């Protein structure tokens, strides 16, 4: 039973909006806390204005049932914050406050997330005037005072070629007391653009939600549209989508492991993985002509086929690359000078990870078995079983080791899929979305679960499009991992999470 005030939904399916029960906010909060207490986690919290009030839609993942649970409640200008009881909601509530100008009373640290104006003119959670300028990260910051306590501010312009983000450390010497992360520089308004976009153009927006997770986001987008329109991608397309998704995981994991080696100054693995990541990206290019998998996944199927010749070439090249990857990574994990840097650095306990609602590699490295491919399989993953790779220490080593385990298992999965590619068509026509329905599509990208929540109005037009990138859940995990660490270990911890700025800022 999903509970009296929640509706049950399978990943990659839709249900009529009316089937999602409405209840009071307090009742919904109690329900959420009960479910989270029994192993569920928060996947998304989205707002939709209804007259002068705000309807909040919640999506929970219930791994033990393999289903999603949906509920909704209407709130006014102020409501009691869920965060004190459920810390995983803290970013979602800040987001609601910023987007819709509502105030979650009792939120411990209510700040803007992306520094844009409220979507409802006249409503602003911080009572800012219409002509007040809103600049990224011009806001309050947590501050530790005291003799010998000092503040180090890093970014938004960094020394390396990375995305912009602002990090403030409260330090006592080299010791970090607190790290506060402020993002929003990459805010482009993609969610709003997805609402307004011509359906033929929306796919291009989905491809750029987070450039390194193109296949994950596009697949989630297409699965959601197919669910709304009662379309179904053919099995061959599902298999090619899964191959592309695993290739994306392979390339990014190998690149990350090389970058981790680079951050501790271990040159051999860094040099090799840099090349191997490129080789793996070229495999995606072999499938669709683009190294990041753009133009491959399309509503109703995929745009490119894998003929037997190319499939066998892909398999052969993958085996060759994997041999080199194995060599480079065995060297990494056998070097004591590397292990001593990885082990015990930036630990996140499994209880903290549960509380914060971490997902993906970061959660699995803290011993949580969170992997949408196994929990809520959709597409090809209903047939291809993927073991969940976890490690229990929660430190940089765990995040590196989980990546290495996943590299091996993804490679096996790709080989299996290539060996038995289903026959049949590549795409079916995806019917237009049916009216008044809600669809949720969750895909396990390389960084973690990608969630697309789409709701249509009675005319079949998209009324709500909520994207939750795994980074949105995980940035707080990085901030907590740095507590009581050395400030010099920050770059290493940061790389071990390797979160997306644009996926967070949308």
């Amino acid at each position, binding site marked *: 039973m999903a509970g009296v005030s929640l509706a049950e939904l399978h990943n990659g399916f839709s249900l009529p909006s009316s089937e999602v029960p409405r209840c009071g906010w307090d009742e919904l909060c109690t329900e959420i806390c009960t479910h989270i207490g029994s192993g569920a986690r928060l996947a998304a919290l989205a707002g939709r204005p209804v007259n002068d009030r705000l309807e909040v839609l919640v999506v929970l993942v219930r791994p033990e049932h393999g289903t999603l649970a949906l509920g909704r409640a209407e709130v006014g200008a102020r409501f009691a914050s869920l965060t004190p009881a459920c810390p995983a909601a803290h970013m979602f509530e800040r987001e609601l406050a910023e987007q819709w100008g509502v105030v979650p009373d009792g939120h411990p640290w209510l700040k803007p997330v992306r520094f844009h104006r409220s979507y409802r003119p006249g409503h602003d959670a911080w009572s800012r005037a219409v002509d007040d300028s809103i600049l990224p990260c011009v806001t309050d910051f947590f501050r530790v005072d005291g003799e010998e306590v000092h*503040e180090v501010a890093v970014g938004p312009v960094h020394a390396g070629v990375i995305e912009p983000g602002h990090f403030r450390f409260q330090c006592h010497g*080299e010791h970090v007391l607190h790290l506060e992360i402020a993002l929003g520089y990459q805010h482009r308004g993609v969610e709003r653009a997805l609402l307004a976009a011509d359906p033929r153009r929306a796919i291009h927006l989905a491809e750029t939600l987070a450039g390194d997770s193109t296949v994950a986001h596009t697949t989630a987008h297409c699965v959601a549209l197919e669910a709304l329109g009662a379309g179904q991608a053919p099995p061959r397309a599902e298999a090619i989508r899964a191959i592309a998704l695993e290739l994306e995981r392979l390339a990014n994991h190998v690149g990350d492991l090389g970058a981790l080696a680079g951050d*501790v100054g271990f040159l051999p693995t860094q040099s090799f993985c840099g090349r191997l990541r490129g080789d793996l990206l070229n495999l995606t290019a072999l499938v669709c002509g683009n190294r990041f998998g753009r133009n491959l996944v399309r509503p109703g199927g995929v745009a490119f086929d894998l003929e037997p010749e190319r499939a066998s070439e892909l398999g052969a090249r993958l085996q060759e690359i994997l041999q080199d990857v194995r060599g480079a990574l065995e060297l990494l994990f056998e070097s004591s*000078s590397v292990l001593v840097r990885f082990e015990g650095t930036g630990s996140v306990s499994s209880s903290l990870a549960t509380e914060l609602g971490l997902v993906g590699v970061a959660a699995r490295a803290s011993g949580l078995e969170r992997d949408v491919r196994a929990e809520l399989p959709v597409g090809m993953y209903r047939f291809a079983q993927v073991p969940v790779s976890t490690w229990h220490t929660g430190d940089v080593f765990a995040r590196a080791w989980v990546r290495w385990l996943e590299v091996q298992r993804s490679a096996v999965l790709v080989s299996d899929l290539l060996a038995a590619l289903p026959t049949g068509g590549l795409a079916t026509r995806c019917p237009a979305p049916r009216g008044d329905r809600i669809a949720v599509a969750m895909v396990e990208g390389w960084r973690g679960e990608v969630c697309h929540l789409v709701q249509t109005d009675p005319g079949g037009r998209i009324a709500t499009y909520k994207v939750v990138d795994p980074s949105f859940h995980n940035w707080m995990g990085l901030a907590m991992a740095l507590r009581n660490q050395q400030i010099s270990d920050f770059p290493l911890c940061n790389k071990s999470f390797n979160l997306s700025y644009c996926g967070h800022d949308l």
Partner: protein
Amino acid sequence: MVSASIVGVLAGLILAPLLGGIINRVKALFAGRSGQPLLQPYRDIAKLLRKGAVFSTTTGEMFGVGPAIGVAAGVVGLTLLPLGGSRAPVAFSGDFLLLLGLLALARFCIVLAALDTGSAFEGMGASREVAFSALAEPAMLLAVGALVRATDAQSLSAAVGAVWKQVWQPSMPAAVLVAAALAVVLLCENARIPFDDPNTHLELTMIHEVMVLDHSGPDFGLVLYGGALKLWIFSALLAGVLVPVRCGSPWLDAVATVIGTFCVAAGGGAVESTMARLRLVRVPQLLVGAAVMAALAVLLVR
């Protein structure tokens, strides 16, 4: 005799940046890359000297003075530096204390220049540099002290000149300890792996590099050249202890030691290619270890 020692100083002035090029090529070789040209450090310095500089409005005079004193101290230090059996132009009893003092002066001025910017990063780098050098200096002093005591010499030139007759042959363990301590101090003082990563772009992990982030143009060129001179001084000293050529001809001794210096740089490149950086909190432990090795060497020699 005099001519060989003057040429030794000139060799140091000219060849010092080459050590950085050798290290980079060795690292490239290990990584399977072709690497940057051997003479790239010269090109970098030449390029920087031709460029204009940007000065932050928060900086004062010390900011520009630091790099200049760094180079000046390095040049004066070279005149005290013997190349194996080839004596330095200036040698007097207790000159090794002056050499250490010059290196400390260079560091002091660079640290002041870093603090002059008022930037949190540079302050952080300066505090790290000073904390680690406070441990590296005793190790260096003890190592040189052991050398001087073992050879009954008063000056650095006499000590290095006699090291193969009086230290390596009669009391091998002490010599090994001195060489090991010198090697550790060399890597630390010159911001190499495992202490610091000269290639990193991660400002929070840097030690030496972060101190000179605000320097640009000719000032930064001087910082690089000063760093090269320092690397040369340490490498040549280590090579002087390790290279067993004392044939009596200052020219041959000097050439052998210069080749040894290049080998020391190549060895440094090999270390960088095969091991990861230490955690910053572990750095003092290794430095104290070096000091203990040097102290043991002092006790071992009679």
